[in-house]
């Protein structure tokens, strides 16, 4: 395959750089720079007052990991409780609080900020050849706002808890809740504000900070995805903020906007909530999709198949994602005809997602695929996300959703997209960029093993839930009929395996900081601008303003030595086999 990349006129002596990267090069020729962003200053204050986008990325990484563990513990409690039909360990209200804590922490404090906060902050400026975000101080402020909101939220969960489910539906959250709805709502409001500010910053950065020659057609697809995500963040989040404001008003003053007994309408809350929260599921998946593009091209040593289609599908998802929120309300009493419209529109939103999946698989085709840990996670992502997306269509069809709504089928659907999708993409991104962020390489063996364990654990957890849900097991109930016990036990066993899987990177990644070998500037021999900086990068990323002359995934270009001969200009980094 490989030799067909170059044009027919290429002399056979031309040395092409198609070296498969089964193992990263052992020797680091350049060595890490003496002064880089991690060691140019020391002390707590140098971190807490930094406006460097790279350090802010690291600032996000640490609390995010902790929140993920908190959410994981809550999930563990829920799963443990479900091994017996009448509950194994938790009281009824404790069960409500546990699944609410799990859902809210994982969504608001982990999945939404994780990739934008860490990888977005760190790599968007580097990928477009900028020295920093457009508004560095705002970026730091956004981190503080987020931390403040998160602390608030965690405090609300710890002292009194929250039992409404992550959806905050009234009247569960107004009349019938005696828990910290207002405080938790305020926490959501504040973290939402941070999400808006980060999105604003990324949009302004992408528009105004690109290096010379970095045209829209040369933007890495991760940047396109982050851009689309940010658009959703700034358009949708304010409406959620407003919804929780109104909810808080209703609770504080005891008046009815959502309470039907006072003339209000609970569906009004659902409309405002899902206006945000359906697009928000794309806030949770688009950054992951962005990472997948970078990893797939690198480990297939190929240009992405259909750059434009993939780039515009991100924007398409961002736009069409706003037209479908009613599919969460089919059975809530919303107008039937409106439900039909939403059902049809929901079919539309699957198209851009499918475009991406097809383009990724086409990118594999003819590539020189190697299976490092990031690639294993990516393959896991594609398989699991496809299942998640397709089951979404079952749910989006008005008729089938009547059977499946509020069952474990929905749970399985969104865990396939959010855990199988975003969580795997996050792992892929973390493993892909870890050497760039820290300058150290982690254990090849353990990382691959972790990927496999997570995949096995994940499938064991959530595949049975499709079956259970299809047979009618409702979500959020603490008790269930005995015939579902087998399924629940399988799920809990899978969750345990998954838990081990997630603990492994938490061990070998930090260990690599001390024992890992130097990764070198470009361990994966990737082509993006971010890899042309030393690892870890220096303070201002680029010593001089980079000038961009070609697209982001020119893996098929001859190596730079041959480029200097002036022979290979015509290759446009074609798409592998013809």
């Amino acid at each position: 395959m490989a030799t067909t990349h170059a044009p027919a006129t290429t002399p056979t002596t031309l040395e092409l750089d198609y070296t498969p990267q089964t193992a990263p090069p052992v020797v680091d020729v350049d060595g890490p720079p003496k002064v880089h962003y991690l060691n140019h200053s020391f002390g707590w204050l140098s971190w807490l007052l930094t406006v460097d986008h790279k350090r802010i990325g690291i600032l996000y990484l640490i609390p995010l990991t902790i929140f993920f563990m908190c959410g994981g513990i809550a999930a563990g409690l829920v799963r443990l409780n479900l091994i017996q039909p009448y509950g194994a360990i938790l009281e009824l209200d404790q069960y409500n609080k546990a699944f609410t804590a799990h859902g809210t922490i994982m969504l608001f404090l982990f999945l939404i900020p994780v990739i934008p906060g860490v990888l977005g902050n760190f790599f968007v400026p580097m990928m477009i050849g900028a020295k920093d975000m457009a508004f560095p101080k705002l970026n730091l402020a956004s981190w503080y706002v987020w931390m403040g909101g998160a602390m608030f939220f965690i405090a609300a969960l710890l002292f009194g808890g929250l039992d409404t489910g992550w959806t905050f539906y009234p009247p569960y959250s107004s009349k019938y809740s005696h828990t910290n709805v207002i405080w938790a709502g305020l926490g959501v409001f504040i973290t939402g504000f941070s999400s808006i500010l980060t999105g604003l910053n990324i949009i302004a950065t992408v528009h105004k900070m690109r290096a010379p020659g970095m045209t829209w057609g040369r933007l890495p697809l991760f940047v396109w995805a982050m851009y689309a995500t940010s658009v959703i963040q700034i358009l949708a989040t304010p409406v959620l903020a407003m919804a929780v404001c109104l909810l808080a008003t209703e609770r504080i003053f005891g008046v009815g906007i959502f309470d039907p007994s006072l003339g209000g309408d609970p569906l009004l809350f659902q409309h405002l909530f899902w206006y945000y929260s359906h697009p928000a599921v794309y806030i949770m998946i688009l950054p992951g999709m962005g990472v997948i593009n970078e990893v797939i091209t690198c480990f297939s040593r190929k240009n992405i198949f259909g750059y434009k289609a993939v780039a515009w599908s991100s924007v398409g998802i961002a736009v069409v994602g706003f037209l479908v929120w009613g599919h969460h309300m089919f059975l809530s009493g919303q107008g039937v005809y409106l439900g039909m419209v939403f059902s049809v529109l929901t079919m539309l939103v699957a198209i851009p997602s499918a475009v991406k999946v097809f383009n990724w698989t086409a990118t594999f085709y003819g590539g020189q695929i190697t299976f490092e840990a990031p690639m294993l996670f990516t393959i896991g992502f594609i398989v699991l996300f496809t299942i998640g997306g397709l089951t979404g269509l079952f749910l989006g069809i008005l008729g089938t959703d009547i059977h499946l709504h509020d069952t474990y089928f929905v749970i399985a659907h969104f865990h396939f997209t959010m855990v199988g999708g975003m969580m795997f993409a996050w792992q892929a991104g973390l493993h892909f960029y870890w050497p760039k962020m820290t300058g150290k390489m982690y254990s090849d063996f353990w990382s691959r093993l972790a990927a496999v364990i997570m995949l096995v654990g994940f499938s064991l957890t959530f595949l049975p839930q499709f079956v259970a849900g299809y047979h009618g097991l409702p979500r959020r109930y603490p008790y269930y009929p005995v015939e579902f016990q087998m399924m629940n036990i399988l799920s809990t066993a899978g969750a345990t395996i998954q838990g081990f899987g997630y603990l492994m990177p938490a061990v070998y990644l930090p260990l690599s900081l001390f024992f890992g070998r130097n990764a070198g500037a470009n361990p994966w021999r990737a082509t993006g601008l971010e890899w042309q900086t030393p690892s870890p990068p220096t303070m201002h990323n680029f010593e001089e303003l980079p000038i961009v002359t070609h697209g982001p995934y020119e893996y098929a270009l001859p190596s730079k030595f041959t480029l200097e001969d002036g022979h290979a200009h015509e290759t446009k980094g074609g798409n592998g086999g013809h």
Partner: protein
Amino acid sequence: MATNAHAEGEGRQPIVAHHFNNIRQQQASVRFGMWVFLVTEVLFFGGVLCAYAACRIWYPKEFEAGSTALNPFIASINTFLLLSSSFTITLAIRAAYKGQRDGLRLWLASTIVLGTVFLGFKAKEYYGDYEEGLIPGPQKTLVDDVDATGKPVLREVSVFAVNLKHVLEHKNAKAKAISDKMTWNERDRTQMFFVFYYSITGLHVIHMIVGLGLLVWQLILAQIGFFEPTERHVYIEVMSLYWHFVDLVWIFLFPLLYMAGHHSMDGAF
């Protein structure tokens, strides 16, 4: 290519921050950043106005009555105050652009004064509503009523409903007519209008306070000569975008909250 215009401004800060290549890039980013922020603001107010619209579709009568009970005169004065402040801040941009320090301070200060007077009137208006007891809440009381057969009964209604009835009956003839056509249930539900009234105007007031804080800060900056390099007029411009937006919200609140009912000039004087 990228001209590094690291000219030193007044004070120690360079005019062009380290991560920008030139002043044009910086100005464009700042301006664009504010526009994007205003998009989120539009959707923020859009959310509550959408809820307002949904509720008004269900309860047109209650919204009419609620709006009738409000004070349209203060709101009208406030409209003009806010429009004038939009005008003065536009003049402030021009002064900053031309490097007229005194003009800049004058127009910033007038904007602040106009905004503060607006808030003063607003406070007066809230106080009036409070005096009239137009505060929604769960407190109940008993009133005389008749049941379906015409037999007199005692009926539990919200304190708010009683106050509303009182306010409408003493306002003017039209308001009294509206009130007479209402059932107690409807009077109770008029609280919903007031929830919207307080929350939307409250949010608007919060935006005004934030804006005034920023304006005061800019006035101080103008005082110490921060805007001496005229390139920095862009910060005044961006501030004005925010301020105009606050004005824009008010322009829509005025018909939706205050003018949704029946007002007549009778009660004016």
